[in-house]
């Protein structure tokens, strides 16, 4: 049985790029504050020594990394499990069986909300935070997937419940 991977929304790439710009911008501000306001800057290296690597990293993350990450990120749902691929250089394919899911959550961050995106997070019990979070979904898609999952989990556990009742 092969699994069919579903790509995430192209807006996910934009959200990654915005996050990169925000993070790198914060770094740039910290650097600028240092160079402009610290009274004696003679002990610091020439500003270009920091600015050039900064620009290279920003370009790398903003152009190469975010598009690679967007390309690789995908999810798949089979009748008994949920799959997620993520990463760009370090790659992870995670699978969670549906009957191990404890609860399901749809979340929207600030950047995601402006782009109309959401992410769907599945929690498994006892794993202490390690779980599966599908980013870059349309809010409606995420809500629909959540409803479908909750449904599937409910029907999944019903045979167990009836069995117990019979037994008692």
């Amino acid at each position: 049985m092969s699994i069919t991977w579903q790509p995430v929304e192209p807006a996910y790439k934009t959200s990654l790029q915005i996050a990169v710009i925000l993070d790198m911008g914060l770094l740039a501000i910290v650097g600028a504050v240092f160079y402009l306001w610290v009274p004696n800057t003679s002990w610091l290296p020439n500003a270009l020594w920091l600015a050039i690597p900064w620009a290279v990293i920003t370009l790398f993350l903003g152009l190469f990394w975010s598009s690679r990450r967007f390309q690789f990120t995908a999810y798949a749902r089979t009748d008994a499990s949920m799959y997620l691929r993520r990463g760009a250089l370090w790659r992870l394919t995670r699978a969670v069986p549906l009957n191990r899911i404890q609860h399901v959550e749809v979340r929207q961050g600030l950047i995601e909300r402006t782009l109309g995106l959401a992410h769907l997070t599945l929690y498994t019990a006892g794993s202490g935070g390690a779980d599966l979070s599908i980013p870059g979904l349309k809010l409606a898609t995420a809500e629909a997937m959540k409803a479908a999952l909750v449904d599937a989990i409910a029907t999944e556990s019903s045979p167990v419940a009836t069995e117990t009742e019979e037994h008692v």
Partner: protein
Amino acid sequence: MSEQSTQPQLKWQRTPWLTLGFFIAKEIKLFIKNFTNFLPALAVIFVTDSAWVPYALGGSYLVYIFISALLNHRFFLFALSNDAVHLRTGVLGKKSLTLKYERIQQAELEQTWYFRPFNLTILKVDSAGSAGKEVEIPGLPMQQAQQLRQLMLATAPAVESEPGATTEATQAATAEEPQWQTQFNLAEIIKAGVIDNKIFVLLALLSYPLSQTDWLQEQMVPWLEANIGFIESSLWLNVGLVLAVLSLLFVLAIAVTVITYYDLAVSINGDRYQARSGLFSIRTVSFRYPKLQRVQIKQNIRARLLKRFRVRVSQLQPAMAQHTAGSSAFILPVVNPELLHELRQQLNLTNANQVHWQSISALALLSPTFWVAWLAPITCLIGYFAIELSLTSSFLIAVLLWGLMQTYVVFRWRNYGFSYDSTWLAVKHGVLGRTENWYPYYKIQQLDVYQSPWLRMLGFAHIIVHTAAGAEVIKYQSLASALQLQQQWIQQVGQNQQRWM
């Protein structure tokens, strides 16, 4: 409270006066656990010049312990009904708790040394799950506690989903004689002490406070010089003295193990496994087979020389108990090969000589070999320039060190193996010691296939198996087979209807 109105017949009881000791012990445990909170007070003791401050602080703390234990004892009320334990605790913030017997996962009796002479015991009750609660009722008479435990355990399996297990367990709970039983004699326990020697822990514990104060420098050394000056005259006496101290610590460490595991008795009753041991305080740990998360069979180098194994069974613990781990894990510290064989059968593990261990690709050696290869030139340079050894000797040392490390790397690769069949996933590893971990499939919570850039270049991937007992990595599988195994296993887990908590 609604609970009171529906069950007006509840008889609230206070624990006997003797249990004050239990509450004091609890306060002291709390003190040790939150030790860092008291560091400012300790700092004051060290800094201050006045002689009375330490006594005042220590004294007020003792008074505090006594009063809070007294209050906690006053306000600890429990009631037992036919289907639940009710608790009302708390001095200022009140807490009321009802634990239904059918929700109880575990019920243990702990006979601590201060209750044993009075034939009293502590009943420990767990209701596992993600919001696990642990309840301790101290000072119950032995007989009553035993009856209560029987009642709880007889009710508990009703929530279990497997019909087979339920009937078996109910039968077992009513049966007097366990189906399988074994006893460990003192010689075996001493062997366990040799294997699991905590001498280094003891050394660290002793050396830390000594290193923190100047007491050793200021008092001990002059005293030694003055009184036993003859020590310095003989090197052999010095060596002998150190050896004597070390062997004393070694014996002490064995004694620690003997105190914990004295008279260890293991019984299997249906799906319930139980181990009872202890010289002063008798401790019982148990687990139920459906809750098993991992079986670990481990041998360190001493254990291999003595031909013994250490078997540890992990189960899902309530979140609170996890922090005090180790105390509640089911551990058999010394298991001989015959007993191991029998245990494997009882636990339904695959027969040792039928396990088909798969090794991993030799390319897994590349990365560690690369890093170890740096070792030789670096050692050589350090030896020559920093320590100023001669060129030949630094070269020889470098080659020797590199050879050792490289041999270790190769053996680690050679001894690594994994195996899977229809019910178990097993991983073994270890060079000097050996470890085998067995995981039942249906406890798998997540399966990852992981590729770093380096692994991608080679076309390999790691499989990471997450269970409630921790994660296990199966290294260096080809990407295709890793993804295929992932699908196959996840399918197997997804279709399994057994309870996994």
